């Protein structure tokens, strides 16, 4: 499976030749280096370990430096694994750039969503909140009833309640690649992508692509 590590740059829009305006997220993707190849014989599964973003050696631990030196690649800040299908082959040291994708392709983008801290039910679960008037006080953003009386006598598991929101892994599926700038390693995908600007994202071939009729 094709994949690359990148950094979210920000959003803008692109105007197509027919005048259609497309909202896009720009991602600085690659250059990534293949640091390690996982094989079924040795590791029990097939994957490539990619590294992204060159960094000063002193920013890394000795263990990380040794790992990267053994692979013969520059010092890299981020290491992530991408599962491989059988039949694909990568070599350690190989460089992967944004041009592995081409406009029109569909991709999934994985990122870490923005942290919202301890959030109430209105923000976290889109509850409506309570009435603002008719003698109500302190009810504007309250969750309302969370259960019945003596039956069942407890709150059901999984009830939507306040709690920590965001800062977790989110995948935006099936986004269209709109632009590829291979000189500057930029990708533009249609729509939004999880995480803040500057956040790390992993771009992979889309898993749920529509296959054309008669295709494989």
């Amino acid at each position, binding site marked *: 499976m094709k994949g690359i590590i990148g950094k979210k740059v*920000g959003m803008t829009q692109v*105007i197509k030749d*027919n*005048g259609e305006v497309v909202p896009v997220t*720009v991602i600085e993707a690659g250059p990534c280096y293949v640091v390690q190849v996982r094989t079924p014989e040795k590791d029990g599964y097939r994957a490539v370990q990619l590294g992204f973003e060159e960094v000063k050696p002193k920013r890394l631990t000795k263990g990380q430096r040794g790992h990267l030196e053994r692979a013969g690649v520059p010092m890299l800040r981020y290491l992530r694994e991408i599962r491989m299908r059988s039949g694909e082959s990568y070599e350690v040291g190989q460089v992967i750039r944004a041009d592995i994708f081409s406009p029109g392709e569909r991709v999934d983008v994985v990122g870490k969503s923005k942290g919202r801290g301890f959030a109430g039910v209105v923000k976290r679960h889109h509850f409506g909140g309570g009435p603002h008037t008719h003698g109500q006080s302190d009810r504007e953003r309250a969750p309302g009833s969370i259960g019945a009386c003596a039956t069942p006598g407890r709150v059901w598991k999984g009830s939507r309640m306040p709690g920590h929101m965001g800062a977790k892994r989110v995948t935006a599926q099936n986004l269209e690649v709109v632009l590829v700038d291979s000189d*500057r390693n930029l990708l533009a995908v249609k729509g939004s992508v999880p995480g803040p600007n500057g956040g790390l994202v992993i771009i992979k071939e889309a898993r749920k692509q529509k296959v054309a009729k008669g295709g494989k």
Partner: protein
Amino acid sequence: MNLVESLERQLEPNPNIPALRPGDTVKVHVRIVEGTRERVQVFQGTIIRLRKGGVNANFTVRRIAAHGIGVERTFLLHSPRIEKVEIVRRAKVRRAQLYFLRERRGKAARLKELRK
């Protein structure tokens, strides 16, 4: 310069649009796609605002349609759907956004022509 800006700067504005100013009366020739057919429609009116912002730069044209109903349309400066823009008349205006025209009707909504 950040990367988004540099990407936007590569995109050229539509070359068929001349330099515009608020208060200009213009004829905007817009390409309209109806199913498979394509035709050009002309929208004539006064520019009431210009907005900057990279690829999103746009201008709004106000015209008085039938029964004195005001119609405003916003066009993107980068849009290839605009065939051309003709400047019919330039007016002397003292502000960048001519929103006061919305409250005026008939003779009161005129603008003084610019003298060179």
